[in-house]
């Protein structure tokens, strides 16, 4: 448990290096929702393969770690309704806001971009209120 913040810091730095590589080499902002969303709604047709390869990397790298080092217990809820509603909200919300934790949070804040900072404040506030409401008051999650 005391190791958690070190793993968080190291893992975070690797996330930042991935974002830096994508920016400095490919010249693109590493936003997970934008890269995926552009594939899904066709708006990213011009960079279809590049996006696909990026997402393949996101999927394959953890899969390899789990294959060789063993997995981690997942604690995701098994409540189907919660999962579906949550997924829909994340999908719609990130596209309307034009970014998520990686795009607005990592790439936006580090550029001291007002939109990234405001988006991050709002999604953390909304997430905090949601967890308090649905965990402590309604007891759903």
């Amino acid at each position, binding site marked *: 448990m005391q190791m*958690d*913040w070190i*793993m*968080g*810091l190291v*893992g*975070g*730095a690797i*996330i930042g*290096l*991935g974002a*830096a*590589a*994508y920016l400095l*080499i490919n*010249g*693109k902002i590493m936003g*997970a929702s934008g890269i995926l*969303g552009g594939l*899904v*709604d066709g708006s990213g047709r011009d960079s279809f*393969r590049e996006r696909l390869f*990026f997402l*393949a*990397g*996101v*999927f394959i*790298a*953890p899969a390899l770690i*789990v294959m060789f080092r063993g*997995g*981690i217990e*997942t604690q995701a*809820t098994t409540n189907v309704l919660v*999962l579906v*509603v*949550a*997924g*829909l909200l*994340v*999908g*719609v*919300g*990130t*596209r309307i*806001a034009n970014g*998520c*934790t*990686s795009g607005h949070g*990592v790439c936006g804040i*580090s*550029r001291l*971009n007002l939109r990234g900072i405001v988006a*991050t404040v709002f999604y953390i506030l*909304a997430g905090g209120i*949601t*967890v308090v409401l*649905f*965990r*402590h008051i309604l007891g759903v999650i």
Partner: protein
Amino acid sequence: MKRELYALFAGGLFGVGLFISGMTETDKVQGWLDVFGQWDPTLAFVMGGAIIPMFFAWRYTNNRQPVLGGDFPAKPDPKVGRNLIIGSTLFGMGWGLAGLCPGPSIASLSYGGWPHWLFFAAMISGMIFAPRFRERLDSMVPAE
């Protein structure tokens, strides 16, 4: 093919980082958002750790070009519009409910089991529906 290979490499780093940092562990994410419960500050370290290399990367982009050519992304319009607020709020609600956001959702597909696949499928559906929802928003109140 170069662009694709470097994209695969960057995506791989992103995936490893998400795995190591605990961002794919739904408990940890919800613990970070749970300020009135057993608050878990790990995510603050993840965000801090990720912002530091990117802060220097952005500074390096001044008067330079990406390695593979083209231009760096232009500085976006700083205007904070209604869609940014509404979208971020909806996203935050979903993030809190399931403890997953887009990157970690993809990174955890291979080991998360069916709940992660169901969340992923719902997220894709939301992304398909989003342009229509955005039109609705714009027709309700004239766009800013």
